[in-house]
Structure formats: structure tokens, C-alpha cells
């Protein structure tokens, strides 16, 4: 995708006038929060406060914030493992997400899921999944559930450019179209799947065109342009809700950091490429310019940045203060209440230590 030219004085990009300034401002605040959160997460990872795999979405904020901005609160969001930004946009608190990254009891999944498995039913965010494309059949089923329950919401299912070559993509899109399910498959095209570029992975690099194989609408937008993302997502979600037709939306963006914090991210691309992407069309820079064109001052932006830093710093404090899960709750949540009774006769002859496992599902919350 050719880098979008940055706005110049001579032609100020004020963005879509339909979007009220205060709304645009709050969306920008979320984008900044997301960027600051990811930067801090990387720092905490390197400080060994966070472990496992940690996938950052810096550079993709216009997609995560824009998509969620077009969703109704009751609409359901499902994503892969690169989910922090989406979770914050969907309304999870920085506290509960950071506490989850720290693996603490107050994390949204009580420290059981970690970075890849953020989720919060109350916010209609159904995870946070780690198997490439594995979330597609699940999201398709959530859409089926909405239809069966006669609810008129829709599902947005995020996946990456590399995930579109998995069989689960094909089966899910076919089912969604055949059954007229209210779901938008959001392909976040950030150019690479780990170290493999779209051209090296997909025989049809124009991913959105694959929707045609299912008689489904497919669109591609500049994923770094907040307004474009909001507009396209909103339109496709409306069709999903009202006409019960699914769609594919491909947002063209870029991942600034490595695939995960463990990856320097330079074996398969150059420093220069990354720098050029940061300079041209960075979603925050661009949105900031629009807000400036509508009168926000440097002081306003400083306040926004400071507030984001404050919230994230508070989240780190909150996470650090939250208790580690108690070892006695190792098996908590695995099975539904009442299961302990089903398992009680399994103890004789079981492997060393197994007798100790308790199956009550309460997490003491």
C-alpha cells in the first residue's frame, strides 16, 4: 500500500465532518492510550513483569479504535492474540488488561489467560485467541447464536493477513454466507505474518477479493485512516445487522514492533522500511493533524498524552498490587459448578498429586 501523504498546511485534512469534534477527540484519546499502553507493556515485559508471548499493535490504532467505534456496545468482538488495543477500545479498563498481562487475580481472566487471551463478556469481547484462524469458526458460531436468539446485533471477527491461508478461514466464510450470518471478518493486513509477507503467503495478495468465493462483499480500506475505517465498518455492520449478510473488510496498516516482544522484527524487513511507515501515515500523527485543523492546541495534545500516561501508570500500579492467583485455584474455572461431584470418584489410582486438584469453579470474586 502506498504510504498516505501526511496532511499539509495548504490542504488541511479535517476528516469526516459527520464525526463530532468531542467524539473524534475521545477516539484519539483511546488511540493514544493504546499506543502508550503497548509501549509500557513492552517495558514491563523486559522488566520480567509480563511473560509468555506478548504481541503489540503499535501502528494499528486507527483500525482497532475505528472498527470498535463503528460497533454498538452490544455487538460482539472476537480477535486473535494481538488484542490489547481492541480490548481497550471495546471498553475494558487498562487496569484489568494490565493486571491480566501481569497474571494477577484482578486481570480480566484472573491471570489465567495473559496477553493472548484478554476477554470480557460484559463488554461483549469474546477473546483473545491464540491459534491462527481458530477464532473464525468460534466467531461464526457466536453470529449463529445471535440469530438463534433473535438479537439484531452482529459480530466482528479480527484476524491477520497470515490467517487467511488457513482452512478455517474458508470453512467459516462459507458457513457465514450460506447461513446468512451477521458477521464482519476483519482482516488486519499489517503486511507480515511473523516474517512472511503477504506476497510470499497468499496466492491472491488482494485478500478482500477472496470474499467473492462465498458471494460475500469484500472491501479494502486504508487501515491507518480512522474515518475510512469507521465508515466502512459501519456500513458493513449495518448490512450484517439488517440484511443478515456477512462481509470481509481488509484494513491496510503496519506493525511497528516485532511480531512479538521477543522478535526484533528486522530479519525480514529493513529499519528504513519501518521508519518510512512511521513517518508516512502514522494513524496518530494523522488524527492529531485533523484535530489540530479543528482547533485543538498543543496544550490539548499534551494533556491527552499526559492523561494516557497517567492511566497506564495507574494500571501498572493496580496490576502490581493485585494478588497472584492462589495455587489452590489451579483448576478453578476448568469445569462448571457441580463438576467436583462428578470427579470425586476419579481419585483412586490417579497420578501423583492429581488427588489434590479441586474442581470448584469459583474464583473467589
Amino acid at each position, binding site marked *: 500500500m502506498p504510504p498516505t501523504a501526511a496532511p499539509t498546511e495548504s490542504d488541511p485534512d479535517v476528516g469526516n465532518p459527520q464525526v463530532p469534534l468531542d467524539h473524534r477527540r475521545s477516539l484519539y484519546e483511546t488511540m493514544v492510550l493504546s499506543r502508550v499502553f503497548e509501549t509500557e507493556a513492552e517495558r514491563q515485559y523486559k522488566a520480567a513483569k509480563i511473560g509468555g508471548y506478548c504481541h503489540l499493535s503499535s501502528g494499528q490504532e486507527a483500525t482497532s479504535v475505528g472498527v470498535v467505534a463503528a460497533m454498538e456496545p452490544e455487538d460482539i468482538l472476537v480477535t486473535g492474540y494481538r488484542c490489547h488495543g481492541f480490548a481497550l477500545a471495546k471498553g475494558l479498563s487498562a487496569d484489568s488488561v494490565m493486571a491480566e498481562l501481569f497474571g494477577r487475580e484482578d486481570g480480566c481472566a484472573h491471570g489465567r*489467560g495473559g496477553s493472548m487471551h484478554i476477554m470480557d463478556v460484559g463488554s461483549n469481547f469474546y477473546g483473545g485467541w491464540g*491459534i491462527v484462524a481458530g477464532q473464525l469458526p468460534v466467531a461464526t*458460531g457466536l453470529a449463529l447464536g445471535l440469530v438463534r436468539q433473535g438479537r439484531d446485533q452482529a459480530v466482528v471477527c479480527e484476524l491477520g493477513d497470515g490467517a487467511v491461508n488457513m482452512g478455517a478461514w474458508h470453512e467459516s466464510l462459507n*458457513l457465514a454466507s450460506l447461513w446468512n450470518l451477521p458477521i464482519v471478518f476483519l482482516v488486519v493486513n499489517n503486511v507480515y505474518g511473523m516474517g512472511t509477507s503477504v506476497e510470499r503467503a497468499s496466492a491472491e495478495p488482494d485478500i478482500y477479493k477472496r470474499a467473492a468465493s462465498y458471494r460475500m462483499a469484500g472491501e479494502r480500506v486504508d487501515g491507518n485512516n480512522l474515518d475510512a475505517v469507521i465508515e466502512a465498518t459501519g456500513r458493513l455492520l449495518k448490512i450484517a445487522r439488517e440484511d443478515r449478510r456477512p462481509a470481509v473488510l481488509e484494513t491496510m496498516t503496519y506493525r511497528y514492533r516485532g511480531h512479538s516482544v521477543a522478535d526484533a522484527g528486522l530479519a525480514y524487513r529493513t529499519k528504513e522500511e519501518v521508519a518510512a511507515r512511521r513517518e508516512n501515515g502514522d494513524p496518530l500523527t494523522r488524527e492529531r493533524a485533523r484535530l489540530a485543523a479543528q482547533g485543538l492546541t498543543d496544550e490539548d495534545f499534551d494533556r491527552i498524552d499526559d492523561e494516557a500516561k497517567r492511566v497506564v501508570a495507574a494500571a501498572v500500579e493496580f496490576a502490581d498490587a493485585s494478588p497472584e492467583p492462589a495455587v489452590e485455584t489451579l483448576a478453578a474455572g476448568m469445569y*462448571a459448578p457441580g463438576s467436583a461431584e462428578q470427579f470425586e470418584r476419579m481419585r*483412586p*489410582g490417579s497420578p501423583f498429586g492429581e488427588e489434590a486438584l479441586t474442581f470448584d469453579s469459583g474464583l473467589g470474586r
Partner: protein
Amino acid sequence: MTPVAEKPEAAGVVEMTYREALRLAMREEMERDERVFIMGEEVGLFEGSYKVTAGLMDEFGEDRVRDTPISEEGFVGAGVGAAMLGERPIVEIMTLNFLLVAMDQVINHAAKIGAMFGGEVRCPMVIRTPNGAGNQLTAQHSQSFDGWFAGTPGLKVVAPASPADARSLLKAAIRDDDPVLFIENLPIYKEKGEVDLSDDSAGEIGRAAIVREGSDLTIVSHSFATVRALKAAKTLEQEHGASVEVVDLRSLRPLDTQTIAESVARTNRALCIEEGWPSYGVTAEIAARIQKACFDDLDAPVERVGMAEVPLPYSKPLELAAMPGEARLVDAALATLEGSR
């Protein structure tokens, strides 16, 4: 086409096939709870490749008895998602062999939800599928992977052996709030037994049953292997004067080791049998638990029998030689009865 069993109205004890008992359980639960629906290949118009769902589409409509394309990974996952939203899907997989293409959704999605999301969401779904061999279906279509699922924390695995248990445990599986793999079996569908239509209650998952009492040897089995065990036990009594107890596991996870251990403590000898390959199979776990729970009770090593460890050949004589048929069961039982002190 297999006739549909009488409706519960006709109360009382009636004889029906395992297949009819399954169909009855699904109809009863679908009438009882509108969240329950069936999904799978050929479950509707075709009336089920093994006719288990025959008549249900006519009765409940295409939405609640939903034919799917050939896309196991897709529709098993669709069941997972619908269940997360509170629906109660019953996903039929034509045979267990085809679950191989959907393993990721079963093992790495359905089974993980409860624990991985900290108990904040559940996955109340049932996957019904027959395992087994015996009709020359050959290597790719004659397998039993029961132990793989039974060894997966987060799943429950149920595999009844009689029509009455098939009905009550399928009802229990449908009402359960966790993902349950409900393992059926091809030859068992036509087995007959009595079912009490007046009792609409669900069975208890995690409870084995002593389906035959005896004092010399305990045979531990599940699903069709229990049908085989009961026949072999008769033969052993009539022709060899051996008194054989048969423990029908009914569920593999949770596994009722307590009932097994109590039985072996009485008989002091155990033979574990299964339809599938025994090495690294279900009988390995049973034997490992018995030798630990009953170490001082055992008068002979715990013996195991299953399908010969080869991809099942098409040829009838070869297939027969590979199956855990009555002759092999009797020989194994006699060896166990004679073994050691």
C-alpha cells in the same frame, strides 16, 4: 428408515434400540429446552447417515436440525461459539474418524474456554459421534480415539453401553454446562434394551456401573466393548465355570476408578478391554490406575485386549483377526485367571 420410538406420552418400560434411545433423548431435550439444536452433515434431509436423527427435522424444522456442508472444523467451531453465547448445540460428527479435521476446535478451543478465560464464560456443547469398526470400512474409517479426548482436561467424555444409559447420559450431557464428547459406536446402534419412558431424569456423569456380578475376575470396558464383555462373561461361566464381574465405565472423563478398584479388591484379577488400539489407549490408563489402587489385591497382572495394532485392513478375515472378538477375550480372561499366584 428406522422407526421413530414412541413419544414419552406412552409411559412405562419399552424395549428400543440404542439408536432409538439417542433419538428419544434428543427429542425430549429439544422439547424441554429451546436452546438445544442439532448440527451436522446429513442430519436432516438425509435423516442421518446412521439414522439417529431420523424424523427430527420434520418435527423441529431446519433451524433446529441443521444440515451442514462438509466442514467439520467450521461447524464444530460454530457449535463452540453458539455455546459460549448460551445455546446448547448438539454437533453430530458422522464418525469419530472425521473429528481429526476438527481436533483444534475440540482440544484447543472447546476444552480451553472455562479455564483459560478464568471461569468467566462456559461452553455447554455436546459432540456426538460413533467410533468403532467391524464392517470392512478399512483403515481410515475404523478408529477409536477415545483416550485422546479422555486425556484432555476441560473435556468430559461419556460412552454408554446400553439404550437406557444412552438416553439418560445423552440427556445429562446436553444439560451439562461443559463440553461433552458423547462417543457412540457403529455396531451398538442396533443393540436393544429396556428404557423407562416414565423417567425423564438425566443420568449421572462420572459413575461406572457393575453390569454383571462375579467373584473371579473383573472385566473393565466401555461402549461396545461392554456388550462384548457381557457375552464373553457368559461363555466363561458356562464353558469354564469362571465367575466374571463386568464394570461398564460409562464415562471416561471423569473416570470412576473407585468402582473399578472396589470390584478388583473383591476379584483380585482384572482384564481391561476396548474397541481401539490398547497401547497408549484407554486400557493403559485403567491398568495403570488399577495397579496403583489395588497393588496388594492383585493376584495377577492386569491384562489388556483391544484391536490389533495395525491400520485396519479391508479383507474380512484380516479384519476379524484384528478385532477384539469373543475368542480373544475369553483367551485373555483365562490367561488372567491362570496368571501368577
